[in-house]
């Protein structure tokens, strides 16, 4: 990749995009080096959104820092607050009640549903099928209503607190009934969408074989989450997380590694998420939802990994006098930047945006302080 750029042999023209561009929802800068409308090299620059959340977290009390991590991303907000609480719980040896873990998992899987549905809607809009996109936004409203009912807010629900979940997020009989009804409705609607989607010859010919990432390259570029699983690697952190032990679900993989398998991957993962929510609602244990008997102490650097809708999320910080020190957050979209650049190369320039969107970019998550090494 770099050889082309330095020697300037094959590069005919450069198409710059961004930071604000009609085709891109979020601000980022993309330079496409094209030769006869074929992309030969791509360079993506993030950093426009950098707000320095880690810097603001430095020295905050841990409870405040937890609720601040939620504001990193509006799509996977629950994942951030859950992982931040989980880091502190590992550090301080707080035992989370079982009911709280189940409620957290219900929130997380609802979030996975809405994130994947948003991804599919965005993908369909970029590939030019606005009817599918609107349809998916409509299906997504079912999940948003459930999240709003549980958390009181449609986007930033803040369910996890240190040692359990917020009392507002307690699930009573009426809420469980509504979740069950919502899951039945969702399964029906997503199945109908999936049938319609795979039987549409126009859409299938548009997305088959576009934005190829081979399995070898996906591993080399350190992809994570569904982007990696769509190339055939069964890598899912949920299989090793103790929170997910009681649940029975499959790790979905696809073989091709193109846009089609990436999109279908999310459709199938939605069904797995529905399966997990149904199990959690059925087996929801009785008991308290918060554990308040814990003591603050100084802890060296503690880390926690969880599987979120986009891949592996990493939080680590140390605690001094109840305050957060040396916070590091590594989000899954950041690991997928390499794949986004790579997937554009060798394809037509009109497919470049689709190749980037297939890796589920979230540039608010992505803008962390990082060092990129050449691979």
């Amino acid at each position, binding site marked *: 990749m770099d050889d082309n750029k330095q020697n300037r042999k094959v590069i005919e023209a450069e198409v710059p995009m961004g*930071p*604000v*561009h*009609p*085709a891109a*929802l*979020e*601000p980022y800068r993309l330079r496409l080096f094209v030769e006869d409308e074929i992309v030969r090299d791509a360079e993506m620059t993030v*950093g*426009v*959104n*950098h*707000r*320095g*959340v880690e*810097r*603001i977290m430095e*020295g*905050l009390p841990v409870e405040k820092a937890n609720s*601040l991590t939620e*504001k*990193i*991303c*509006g*799509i996977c*907000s629950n994942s951030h607050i859950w992982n931040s609480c989980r880091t502190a719980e590992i550090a301080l040896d707080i035992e989370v009640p079982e009911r709280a873990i189940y409620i957290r998992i219900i929130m997380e899987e609802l979030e996975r549903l809405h994130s994947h549905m*948003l991804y599919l809607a965005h993908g369909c809009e970029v590939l030019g099928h606005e009817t599918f*996109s*609107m*349809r998916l*936004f*409509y299906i*997504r*409203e079912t999940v*948003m209503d459930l999240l709003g009912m549980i958390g009181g*807010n*449609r*986007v*930033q629900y803040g369910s996890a607190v240190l040692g359990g979940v917020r009392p507002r997020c307690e699930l009573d009989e009426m809420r469980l009934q509504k979740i069950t009804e919502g899951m039945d409705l969702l399964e029906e609607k997503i199945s109908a969408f999936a049938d319609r989607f795979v039987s549409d010859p126009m859409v299938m010919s548009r997305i088959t074989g576009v934005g190829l990432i081979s399995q070898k390259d996906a591993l080399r570029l350190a992809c994570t989450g569904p982007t990696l699983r769509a190339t055939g690697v069964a890598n899912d952190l949920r299989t090793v997380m103790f929170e997910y032990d009681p649940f029975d679900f499959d790790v979905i993989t696809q073989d091709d590694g193109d846009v089609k398998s990436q999109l279908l991957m999310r459709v199938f993962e939605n069904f797995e998420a529905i399966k997990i929510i149904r199990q959690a609602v059925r087996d929801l244990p009785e008991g308290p939802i918060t554990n308040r008997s814990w003591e603050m102490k100084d802890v060296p650097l503690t880390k926690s990994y969880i599987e979120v809708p986009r891949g592996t999320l990493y939080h680590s910080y140390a605690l001094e006098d109840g305050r957060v020190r040396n916070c590091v957050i590594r989000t899954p979209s950041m690991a997928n930047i390499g794949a986004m650049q790579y997937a554009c190369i060798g394809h037509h320039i009109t497919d470049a945006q689709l190749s980037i969107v297939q890796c589920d970019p*979230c540039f*608010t998550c992505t803008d962390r302080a990082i060092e990129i090494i050449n691979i």
Partner: protein
Amino acid sequence: MSLKSYSRGRAIHVMLVYTGGCNGCDIEIVNCILSPKFDAEQYKVFLTWNPREADVLVVTGPVTKHNEKPLREIYKAIPEPKAVVAAGACALMGGVYKNCHGDIPSEEIAGPVDQIIPVDAKVPGCAVRPQDIVAGLVSALPLLLNAD
């Protein structure tokens, strides 16, 4: 009602600019215009990404230093008459990102939107609710329709 404002009222184009918030407001706004549930398109409100055909500029997020210049340029590119709606807690006052540790302003943030471009309507909320967005857009419409 003049012919100009009549025709303008039949095709309100909303441009969304995202200046470094958390994506939450952003998606809710796209959702409120595109999704069949809220469906602002039935009131002839359309989403566009081109500043030259936009009438209303919706800004979300605390404006980061990098986004300040693009935001000014986009504001200049929109033809008169225009209205600006700032949506979300970050756009109104900088939200959680404005200050680090009490009153020390964060060096990444160029300030709330009204310090950079004039704002006509403000929509509070973190994240904004789609109902509030529609109300905010409607409250900014007289500026466009009574312009001449």
